[in-house]
């Protein structure tokens, strides 16, 4: 590829760029999807393309192509230059500038113990069919679906800093859902383990088939359960649930591009101002969040982001105080910071890289002896929530309402009975400041999110969250009209 990358960068340099890069993305995907007892999809997908990004006089141009030849690479670079000149007609107050980054030459490959593209599709199909048939054979189950998705992404990035990066990552994403009908009631229950940067060994490690009956039974339990009570009460939340809560109320508001207003037309902005860093009390003193784009198996561990920045690990909320943000090379100079922390990614060869949520997790409690049962024992009246369900948050990331996938009433320190249709509403900092208990590290669990939507045209991104079980005090529960 070097002959092509040199050609594109040479054309860009001659056009007077302050920064340019060319990024090749080759992707293989394999999906097996079953609905009820029907194999709806088994496919193999191959995608290849590249893009040239140029920054000329502080204005961006970007062009993509799937045809690979010297002429086509040159044409793509020229189109990017033409587009950058058009962008200059609506210039920024401060011309865009890329924070400096070292030149890296590196070849990296992510974890993959068993190549999923070598595992017969028939084996994957039989696993999902057995699982869905097991669920459908259970009483009161009306519908089920399951998905196994495997992706191999090979990126080559060369930029005007002198970096040349060759990176391969594997992603595995299992999903399963059961939907029950009892009388006029219908409820679903999912097996939610999240995606992971891994090969097929991840599917062998988890137990999809072994969880089929459990989720089918719990879907029925939910149908017969009492509805969500209303009032102010305590919550104990499991890691699979908290993955989504932190994604929406910590991950997105700490994206610097949102803080700068660049997402205002679609995903919205943020209640945070960059001046809040090192001042804003985001959560209680026991709340600590870490960005870790070096996390083994993390969906966001891409070695280098699409700006060519080496990925990093750093605290973002320490002892409850906001101390950093997720940034890109273009955003950090605008707030006077020197270096990006590597949160710039795109979802394909034909999309402009943008500020994305990194692997972001909550640290376990400092007392390793604390168990989830201890947290429950400290609740007189509250709700224990497992897994992700309904979720919605305002465009500044203040007011949110979350549901879950399985709910239990807590009475006098014990899980008393199942519930359904539980929702809780809070403001972001109020919620994280109400955290008064976190279980120890033995209960910490990662959860990979495969489909975070952001940007226009929409881009879908992957990252891993994680936490131990946590307790929150005095939260408004049951505001929804059921």
């Amino acid at each position: 590829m070097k002959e092509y990358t040199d050609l594109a960068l040479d054309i860009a340099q001659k056009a007077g760029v302050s920064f340019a890069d060319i990024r090749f993305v080759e992707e293989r995907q394999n999906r097996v999807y079953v609905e009820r007892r029907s194999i709806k999809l088994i496919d193999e997908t191959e995608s290849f393309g590249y893009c040239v990004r140029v920054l000329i006089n502080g204005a961006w141009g970007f062009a993509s192509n799937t045809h690979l030849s010297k002429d086509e690479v040159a044409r793509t670079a020229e189109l990017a230059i033409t587009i950058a000149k058009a962008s200059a007609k609506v210039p920024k107050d401060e011309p865009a500038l890329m924070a400096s980054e070292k030149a890296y030459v590196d070849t990296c490959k992510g974890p993959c113990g068993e190549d999923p593209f070598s595992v017969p599709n028939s084996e994957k199909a039989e696993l999902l069919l057995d699982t869905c048939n097991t669920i459908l054979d259970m009483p009161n189950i009306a519908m089920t679906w399951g998905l196994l998705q495997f992706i191999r992404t090979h990126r080559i990035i060369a930029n005007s800093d002198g970096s040349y990066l060759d990176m391969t990552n594997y992603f595995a994403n299992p999903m399963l859902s059961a939907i029950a009908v009892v009388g006029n009631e219908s409820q679903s229950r999912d097996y939610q383990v999240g995606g992971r940067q891994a090969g097929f060994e991840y599917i062998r490690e988890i137990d999809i088939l072994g969880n089929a009956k459990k989720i089918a039974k719990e879907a029925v339990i939910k149908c017969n359960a009492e509805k969500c009570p209303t009032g102010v009460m305590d919550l104990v939340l499991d890691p699979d649930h908290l993955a989504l809560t932190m994604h929406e109320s910590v991950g997105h508001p700490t994206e610097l591009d949102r803080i700068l207003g660049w997402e205002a037309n679609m995903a919205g902005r943020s209640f945070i101002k960059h001046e809040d860093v090192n001042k804003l009390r985001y959560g209680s003193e026991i709340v600590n969040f870490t960005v870790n784009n070096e996390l083994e198996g993390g969906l966001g561990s891409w070695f280098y982001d699409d700006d060519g920045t080496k990925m990093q690990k750093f605290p973002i909320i320490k002892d409850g105080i906001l101390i950093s943000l997720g940034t890109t090379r273009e955003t950090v100079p605008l707030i006077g910071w020197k270096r990006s922390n590597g949160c710039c990614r795109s979802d394909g060869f034909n999309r402009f890289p943008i500020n994305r949520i990194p692997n972001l997790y909550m640290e376990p409690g400092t007392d390793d002896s604390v168990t989830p049962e201890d947290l429950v024992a400290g609740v007189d009246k509250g709700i224990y929530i497992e897994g992700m369900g309904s979720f919605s948050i305002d465009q500044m990331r203040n007011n949110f309402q979350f549901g879950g996938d399985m709910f239990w009433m807590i009475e006098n320190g014990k899980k008393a009975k199942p519930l359904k249709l539980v929702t809780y509403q809070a403001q972001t900092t109020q919620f994280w400041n109400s955290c008064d208990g976190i279980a120890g590290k033995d209960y910490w669990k990662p959860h990979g999110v495969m489909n975070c939507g952001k940007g226009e045209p929409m881009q879908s991104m992957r990252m891993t969250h994680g936490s131990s079980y946590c307790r929150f005090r005095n939260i408004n529960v049951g505001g929804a009209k059921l």
Partner: protein
Amino acid sequence: MRDKNEINALLEEILSKVTAPQAQITYSYESDLASRFGENAITQNMGGEEEGIRLVVAYGMKHGSSIINRVKSESISNLIKWAQDIAKNSPEDPEYMPPLKPQSYPKVPQSFYDDVVALTPLDIAKEINKTVTLAKDKGYQASGLFHANYSIDALANSQGLFAFLKNSNLSYSTTIHGPKGSGYSSESGESTTQVDSEAMAKRAFETAVAAQNPIDIEPGEYTVIFEPQAVEDFLEFMYWNMSARDADEGTTVFAGKVGEKLFSEKVNISTRIDDPELPASQFGQDGLPAKQIIWVKDGVIERLYHDRFWASKKETEPDPIRYPMFMNGEANSIDDLVANCKKGLLVKRLWYIRYVDRKKLLLTGMTRDGFFLIENGKIVSPVKNLRFNESPIVFLQNVVGMSRPIRVNQWSKVPGIMSENFTFSSKTESV
């Protein structure tokens, strides 16, 4: 961009190499210019094109599929090998539907215009500059997306069916922020003559100006007037749920409701293929010819969507397409609805809508980019955004007035709607 004959020849050539007894190919081509702006400047500016080929083959009831995005011999060989290998080794699918015989397609309004193909990045930047200048001159901030796209969708199969559709589309949207409030507007069309970007920017700007310094309002039940954008935001979820199979299995709110009056008699929802303001495709699932379908008539559920398999089980005709979605309205403007409202809230746009209870179709979400208090037929003040927890079913039961329908996007044309007893449940400081 390949022409129709080239694409037909390409798909025929691929089909000729397939040895499986049944095969279907879908071809797509997209060319995009997408210019994104934020804080009064272009922040991303993109151009590119991509082809895609999807092959589905079957041996009896065993099927497999593959996708490539490059038309070259090695990729096409992979395409065929992968799909055939998968199909040969797959378990049988009891719901597999074989390829259709050649179909006759209806005439539909023009959906492709050369003026979109001729657009340059500079043309788009000039349009964006007008929006930005409008905002900047008043000390406001404009953000948005101008997306120009033209595309081809084609379908061919081993039975000799060939279907072809060429489309162009422009969509332009902007959000304009003042210090204490914002406004949003969007337009879409198949030709540059159908998108009035200056009028659109003016609407967003006027909303932003009116939205400044919102007052606090308590959550509760209100009469609401949803502008068409908010109606579309809200009804999308209901429309997705209008599946015959899901209803028959008891998992949606439409279970057992066909033939019942579920909404106000003012409510009529259909798929149309004859409106030049919102052109439809000539063909839908597996190449079935598009046709007009009435889903809701005078408030009564007339029909739910049947895919080919479920239609065969239920011995009815499959529904080829669901979109574009049309909802009838009344001969009113939004101003007329406001004038007829004693006390209520005007909603411009909704955000982050999700299920709370899928069976009941209870949804939650937020208001955004323009939310106003109406008293005695007049807008009296902007108000702070609220979270709602409400069902589109209730919303459409409680309709008391509608405006004329307008095209909201590429897939829907709906009116503004005035509805009573709409439930808001909590507040936010976000503006």
